[in-house]
Every structure is written in structure tokens, then in C-alpha cells.
């Protein structure tokens, strides 16, 4: 790392788990999370020269969030029918060891994934990516008051979903 600017490899190695976690909580599945992480790292690779030392996690969270929102907009414009996976390139299922770590909060992850994205994104950025309301507002291009409202309503919806699921 020179002048506080990490190399692409350092970002992937040191922040890969953070990036993947945010992507997974936003997208709700491994396949889309992998797409998001790959695209995010591609942008990191292209944009590192312009990166100004600061909150690297904030920068990464912003990149992956914008990619997620772009993807959501594209899907709304034209629903895709994915082509069959190329068996030579398809990423194999997550190993069982990785799955076991997700079993316990599976219902919570499902409830999170079921939240409308307007609420899910700020909740994930706040509670998973540990971003401040100000940072979230900047990333989403909305007022802080909107972030505050969406986080609260998102948590309330999440609570309702979990409660209904339990009963």
C-alpha cells in the first residue's frame, strides 16, 4: 500500500469479506452477490487511482450499493430470462461448511431479502456496512430525513415479518 492507496489485490484480500457480506445482504443470494462483488472489484481496479484515502469501507459500500441499485433498475425495465449456465464456467454450490454458518439466521436473512429495496438498502448500509445516516444519504442521493424514515420503517417491517413467520 503506497500513500495510503491500496492495490487492487489488497482490497480484494483485506476487504473481500466485507464486500461480499454487504453484497449478499443486499442481493439475498450467492449468485447475485458474486456478480456484484466482481463488478465492484472491476470498478475498484479502474478507480483506485482516483481514490482519496479515507473510509475505504464507505467507498466500497457505495460502489456495491450503486451496482445493486443499477441492477434493480435494469431488471425492472426488462425482466431477464437468464440463459442456461455454462457448465464449464458455473460457480459450484457453496460448500456445506459455508452453508452451516448461515442456517441459524436464515429466517432473518429471508425476511431481510423480502424487504422492499427502498427499506432494505438503508438498513443493510446502516446495520451491516456500518455507515452513518449522512453517508447513506450521500450514497442514495436522498435527504438524511428520508434515510431516517426508511431505516425505521425497514426495521419495523422486518420485525413484523419475523413475528408473523414465528407465529
Amino acid at each position, binding site marked *: 500500500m503506497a500513500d495510503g492507496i491500496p492495490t487492487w489485490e489488497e482490497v480484494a*484480500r483485506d476487504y473481500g469479506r466485507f464486500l461480499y457480506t454487504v453484497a449478499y445482504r443486499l442481493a439475498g443470494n450467492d449468485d447475485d452477490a458474486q456478480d456484484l462483488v466482481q463488478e465492484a472489484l472491476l470498478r475498484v481496479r479502474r478507480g483506485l487511482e482516483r481514490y482519496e484515502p479515507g473510509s475505504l469501507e464507505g467507498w466500497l459500500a457505495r460502489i456495491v450499493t450503486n451496482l445493486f441499485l443499477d441492477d434493480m433498475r435494469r431488471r425492472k425495465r426488462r425482466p431477464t430470462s437468464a440463459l442456461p449456465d455454462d457448465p464449464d464456467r458455473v460457480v459450484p454450490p457453496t460448500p456445506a461448511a459455508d452453508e452451516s454458518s448461515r442456517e441459524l439466521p436464515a429466517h432473518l436473512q429471508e425476511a431481510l431479502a423480502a424487504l422492499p429495496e427502498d427499506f432494505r438498502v438503508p438498513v443493510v448500509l446502516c446495520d451491516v456496512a456500518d455507515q452513518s445516516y449522512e453517508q447513506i444519504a450521500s450514497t442514495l442521493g436522498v435527504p438524511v430525513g428520508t434515510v431516517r424514515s426508511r431505516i425505521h420503517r425497514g426495521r419495523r417491517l422486518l420485525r413484523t415479518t419475523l413475528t408473523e413467520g414465528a407465529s
Partner: protein
Amino acid sequence: MSEHELTEDLLSAYLDDELDAGARADVETRLAASAEWRTILDEVRDTRDAVRRLPAVDGPTEFWARVMADDTVVDLASERRRRRMPRWGLAVAGAAAAAVVVIGVVAVPQPNRVHPAVATLSDEHAARSSVGNDVISSLASIAVPTRLGR
């Protein structure tokens, strides 16, 4: 509270320490007076804490092995975009490629497609001029007819 309307939305911001001192004091006053607000605060806190306790997620080992390989990020990203292109997208791309070929064949001037052929025109002109006294035109038969002006 001077600037903020005292709404329930403030409870999450209160938990997250995202309120200024005035708003925070107003929320605390309301909490002291309202059992309903205290219940909501507890529920929101539980939910927030549950999300925050969700474990970090590691991608599959093979995924990271590919990502860390040289230039694989670029290749995989392109490949995934291709796989996710809808069928009609492929059809449009194919049609566009075909259109480019057709335009190339039809619209781009081709050599040796001048009608009548320059060589024929030149010979006919030479034959006609041979019966007259036009000295210049009689030279036409020895002109080089191909790729004129190109």
C-alpha cells in the same frame, strides 16, 4: 422540539445516536411518557441488533480463487453479463450484426461494378473515334480502365 416533528421515525435515529441534542431530549421526554413508544423502541432495538449479529459471509473458495487470478475479474464480469443477457437481446445483437454486413455489401462501392464496364466503354469509344479525325479520342483504347479515381 423546535425543528423536528416528533414522529416514531426518530426512534431508530435515537438508537443509532443520529439525533442532535434537542431532538434526543424530546424523544426521551416522549419515551418517559409513552409505554407504546417504549415498546416500539425495544422491538426496533431487538431487530436492529439481530441484523447486526448476522455473520459475515464468505464467498465460495473457488469464487475467490478465480477473482484473485490474473485478469479474471474482467473475464468473469464479461462472461456473467453475457449469460444474463436476455434471449431477445441476443436476437437484437444478431440482427444488428447482420444489418452491418448487408449495409457493407450494398452501400459500399465495389471495384469492377461500374456499368458499363470502363474497358468496354473505352473500346466502344475508340471504335467510334477511329472513323473520325479526333486524335485525342483515338488514344482512349490504350487507357487503363480500372480503379479510376481510387
